[in-house]
């Protein structure tokens, strides 16, 4: 299976076929999720209507972590099996993952405002998502910090794996730290009891987000491939010219 998808052209053909389905599932999932979240589900007995923020906050947190795990996975595949496509999928997924992380942080802050009256709640899970946000920034900054895109891809792939290994350690230490400094907060104790009627909008929204992400991922990977070809053609035209650019330490 892994090798099957490794050929970029085949990946793009499959991507093109899957794309319309993704858009459909995304629209349906988010639409139904939204309708359930806002219209049909009851307000929480304790928090009232503010709990509706959870229908965006929790799925985006799931997506933020899921996308980072995907980046770590494709990076490992790229480094181990030398599939250049893995780097491109990772590079394409990172901005989308960052987007979900931002949604999670903003909605978390707003939710914190309703229950604690402060704009930023140093709650364990929200703080972990904040650190995940920095891991995303580090990945993207490293990926584009080199003149040679290949060099950036490989370095960022390694960082994604190192970051992924550190996530449980960070999560554990932040949780331990938050028990030290803060009484139990509504957000921390597993959040409000997930009433079945609340589960459906959550799941619908999560499926919607995931499909939306996949659709955009396919488009972004196509853009990355086109970008790589532009670079290769530019280099090819330079190949006729004089030797390598001295400013760039390159072994030609």
């Amino acid at each position, binding site marked *: 299976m892994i090798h099957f998808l490794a050929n970029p052209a085949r990946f793009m053909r499959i991507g093109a076929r899957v794309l319309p389905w993704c858009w459909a599932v995304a629209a349906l999932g988010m639409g139904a999720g939204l309708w359930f979240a806002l219209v049909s589900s009851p307000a929480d007995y304790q928090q009232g209507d503010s709990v509706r923020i959870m229908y965006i906050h929790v799925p985006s947190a799931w997506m933020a972590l899921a996308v980072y795990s995907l980046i770590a996975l494709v990076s490992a595949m790229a480094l181990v099996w030398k599939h*250049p496509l893995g780097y491109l999928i990772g590079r394409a997924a990172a901005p989308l993952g960052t987007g979900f992380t931002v949604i999670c942080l903003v909605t978390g802050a707003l939710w914190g405002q309703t229950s604690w009256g402060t704009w930023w709640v140093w709650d364990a899970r929200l703080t972990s998502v904040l650190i995940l946000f920095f891991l995303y920034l580090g990945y993207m900054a490293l990926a584009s910090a080199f003149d040679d895109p290949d060099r950036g891809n490989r370095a960022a792939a390694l960082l994604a794996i190192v970051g992924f290994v550190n996530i449980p350690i960070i999560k554990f230490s932040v949780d331990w730290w938050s028990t030290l400094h803060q009484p139990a907060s509504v957000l921390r104790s597993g959040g409000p009891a997930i009433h079945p009627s609340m589960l459906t909008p959550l799941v619908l929204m999560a499926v919607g987000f995931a499909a939306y992400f996949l659709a955009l991922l396919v488009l972004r990977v196509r853009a990355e491939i086109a970008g790589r070809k532009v670079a290769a053609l530019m280099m090819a035209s330079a190949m006729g010219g004089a030797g390598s650019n001295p400013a760039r330490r*390159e072994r030609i």
Partner: protein
Amino acid sequence: MTDQQPAMGRVDQLIARDIACVRGGRLLFAGLGFSLAPGGVMALTGPNGIGKSSLLAILAGLAPAAAGSVELPTETGRIAYLGHGDGLKPLATVTETLAFWAVVNGPGNAQARRQAIDEAMETFALGPLAALPCGYLSAGQRRRVALGRVVATAAKLWLMDEPATALDGAGARAFDDALAGHVAAGGMAVVATHGPIAVDGIETLEIARFAGAAAGIADPDTWGLGVDQDP
């Protein structure tokens, strides 16, 4: 010049088969193969940017080849590599530098190491510079210390990238003598060079003959990613 891909060579040969090299999404050369027996010197020639340094890096194991394989002489896995940079620390003296690299890259037992260092000091006339920190040396002197390090590692295979740059007349002669001595003692060397090398029985490898465009490999557009023409 060995064109055809060598069959299973003798154990102590350097064999390169079907080497392809892609740099920055661009195919430099492909299908490059040669074999080098003990006592042989292979000169890599070609204009700047053709891929001489890249091939040396692949042979030294510093960079992976996009395709093909390299078999190093298995007798002693040790090789001596000399790149563009001299790899010298400004604050370390010449003796400290040679002693250090002889331990890290050189032979196992101390006796062989001392002998190799003495030979290096003598071949490149490093005696007067021995106590000087490398930071005070001129470019030519630094190159001689770097060449001294190659001798001090007493490795069977030398991989050298334009070794004679910055050397004056005496330095160049010292290098030729060292190379001749190394080869006579059954050593091997692959040298990327622009000028001639005064060693008899030298073979030459024209990398340009294996260049991507010349080798008729598909448009670099596809090699950048191994992508079929258009999705």
